């Protein structure tokens, strides 16, 4: 083999070599046995509790409060009280609290990253390098808006709304918390936030950040619980609901709020097409495909779960994809080498299994690389389906797992037609070296975010949100301020 060949040999691991374990220490995390509700800057005892576990081994981590309707009402009342003074605080002072929060999150990032992986199952590499830096950056970005709102919306006078009720999902627990809380506080609102049932711990640890930042009591309140807690929050005396989660629940919330005059933003499901043209840089595209669907076990609303490959390069792309999948390290989320961690919950694992079974039944061809899954915990091997028809459930429904469906197309028109052929419209990917085609595709894809020659990139300055049944409203950027403001 020549030196050049060696350099082009992309197999990351020479035959026969294995990775030594590289476990991240969990010492940095100190958990309480039992958590109450964080209301008015204090921990209030709840009547009922449930156990939150780690999906990597099903080990119990802590007891968490199940907030009742009365608890939620109390939190909202406290938030409403706090609104009086918080909204009157000069924007520059609100900003300083938020800058503090951003800084403390960065300072304590190791602790948060470990806890995020422990409670949610995502690889430590991702919580450390994606979730935490972005969460801190989000607070830093929106802190700067707090005293500059009059520059944001020409010819309008912005005003805080009041109390924002926020319901977040389990796939990026702390990051979604920051997407919700940061713009709300910058606008001068107070917040009652409900974390996802399976991933409450980083939100509860965040309360300690609020303590350290000396945020006035009642400005942010955290109520944990299941769907009934979320429903109570929707019905409570809030001025706005911001929800990220499934389209089904989003529709139920929209119905529930009909005629109430409460403001609403929804960030719901997706079934993104990742479109690969025959003139693309194939190796880069394959990396993008893998990142698009196996990032965070595919627990990503904007995941590139439908691969649309131009027919002429179908075979090499699928071949390279399978080779690349075989190098993915699936296993302990706390291992620094892990690429694909644990499935978040048993319930989610069952949903993935059900849809994968449906895919096989409907006639799609399944491929999973050989990988040894741990015995305990919730796991699903990276999966790709070929021979998929558009009508199959795996091509229509959001799986929210590491499962990719491959379809083909011949012309750009056909690619657009297929990409847009779902009720969703959250994101899309395009891979081609031709600039005019990128712009043409970007114009025709009905999706809120289009990644061209990249995928799954996020930034606080970049608006994110869906078309059609993927929801309405944007989070991130200047546009992410609007849903938290009232205008004269």
């Amino acid at each position: 083999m020549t030196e050049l060949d060696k350099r082009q040999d992309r197999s990351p691991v020479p035959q026969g070599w294995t990775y030594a374990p590289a476990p991240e220490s969990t010492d940095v995390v100190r958990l309480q046995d039992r958590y109450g509700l964080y209301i008015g800057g204090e921990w209030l005892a709840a009547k009922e509790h449930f156990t939150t576990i780690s999906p990597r081994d099903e080990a119990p981590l802590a007891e968490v409060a199940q907030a009742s309707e009365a608890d939620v009402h109390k939190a909202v009342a406290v938030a409403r009280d706090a609104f009086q003074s918080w909204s009157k605080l000069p924007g520059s002072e609100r900003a300083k609290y938020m800058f503090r929060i951003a800084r403390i999150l960065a300072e304590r990032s190791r602790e948060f990253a470990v806890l995020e992986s422990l409670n949610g199952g995502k690889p430590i590499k991702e919580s450390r390098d994606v979730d935490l830096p972005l969460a801190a950056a989000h607070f830093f970005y929106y802190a700067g808006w707090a005293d500059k709102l009059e520059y944001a919306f020409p010819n309008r006078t912005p005003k805080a709304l009041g109390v924002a009720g926020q319901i977040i999902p389990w796939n990026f627990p702390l990051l979604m918390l920051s997407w919700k809380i940061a713009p709300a506080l910058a606008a001068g609102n107070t917040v009652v936030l409900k974390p996802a049932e399976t991933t409450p711990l980083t939100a509860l640890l965040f309360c300690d950040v609020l303590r350290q930042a000396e945020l006035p009591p009642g400005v942010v309140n955290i109520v944990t619980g299941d769907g009934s807690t979320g429903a109570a929050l929707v019905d409570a005396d809030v001025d706005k609901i911001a929800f990220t989660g499934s389209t089904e629940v989003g529709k139920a919330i929209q119905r529930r709020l009909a005629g109430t005059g409460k403001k609403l933003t929804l960030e719901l499901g997706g079934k993104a097409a990742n479109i690969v043209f025959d003139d693309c840089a194939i190796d880069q595209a394959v990396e993008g495909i893998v990142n698009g669907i196996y990032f965070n076990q595919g627990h990503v609303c904007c995941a590139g779960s439908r691969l649309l490959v131009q027919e002429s390069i179908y075979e090499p792309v699928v071949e390279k994809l399978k080779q690349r999948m075989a190098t993915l390290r699936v296993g302990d989320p706390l291992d620094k080498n892990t690429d694909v961690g644990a499935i978040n919950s048993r319930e989610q694992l069952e949903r993935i299994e059900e849809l994968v079974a449906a895919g096989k039944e409907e006639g799609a061809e399944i491929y999973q690389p050989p990988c040894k899954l741990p015995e305990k915990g919730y796991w699903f091997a990276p999966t790709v389906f070929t021979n998929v028809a558009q009508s199959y459930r795996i091509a229509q429904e959001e799986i929210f797992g590491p499962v990719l469906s491959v379809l083909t197309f011949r012309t750009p028109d056909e690619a657009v037609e297929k990409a847009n052929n779902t009720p969703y419209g959250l994101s899309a990917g395009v891979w081609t070296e031709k600039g005019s085609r990128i712009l043409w595709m970007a114009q025709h894809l009905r999706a809120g975010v289009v990644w061209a020659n990249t995928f799954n990139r996020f930034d606080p300055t970049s608006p994110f949100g869906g078309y059609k049944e993927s929801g309405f409203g944007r989070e991130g950027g200047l546009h992410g301020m609007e849903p938290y403001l009232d205008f004269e």
Partner: protein
Amino acid sequence: MSGRLPVKKTYKLYIGGAFPRSESGRTYEAQDQNVARASRKDVRDAVQAARGAQPKWAAATAYNRGQVLYRIAEMMEARVPEFAELCSGKDEVHRAIDRWVWYAGFADKLSQVLGGTNPVAGPYFNFTIPEPTGVVATIAPDEPPLLGLVSRIAPVLTGGNAVVALASETQPLAAIELAEAIATSDVPGGVVNLLTGHRAELAPWLASHMDVNAIDVTGADGLRAELETAAAENVKRVVSGKPDSQSLYEISAFLELKTVWHPIGV
């Protein structure tokens, strides 16, 4: 009996650039005229026409859209006395005409004001542009019959959407007069569809239609909760504005924001 007998107008619907009667054959009396009473089937035909026409309207250059909207103002100016008889008078007509002119001039400016580039922390070029949400259903207010309708549909069209509008139920004649001005204004058939009839009967079909992307409930007093509930079935954007406002934000209410990323590198 002296002089000639005037030819009276049949007041019809405006769907897909044509003026059909209601397929139901029904009419109702308003402003001393028989007016078409649209049916559920007419609603569906109008939505279909709007869906068919929308992509081309959205793809027209912003400059072109502005010119076409300005042309509506020109056509109305030629019919001021006719319009004045069908609404509160000349003042309302003048304001409606000026409203078209104002929005016409915004067509090629709104993406600069509402969009932009985003300074992401990485080697990417990232920009956000506003795009039309698609097909919009407008429940126009009863009052003012002309200015209310124009104020609600002009921003929708400026953004590149197609519209199915339900006219004032009590004073629908100005809407039909407007349809005739629009039909001679280079607005492609199907971009604007105007229905007359009973709001309580028709609005729920618009709210529940799966191919409508947004609904403006400004004129839907008393029906709002019902319409908003039905709208959730396909996560419609629900907009409630003022009957005669004029603002950039009336346009942005019917826009989506699309953000595009591309790596920067050599």
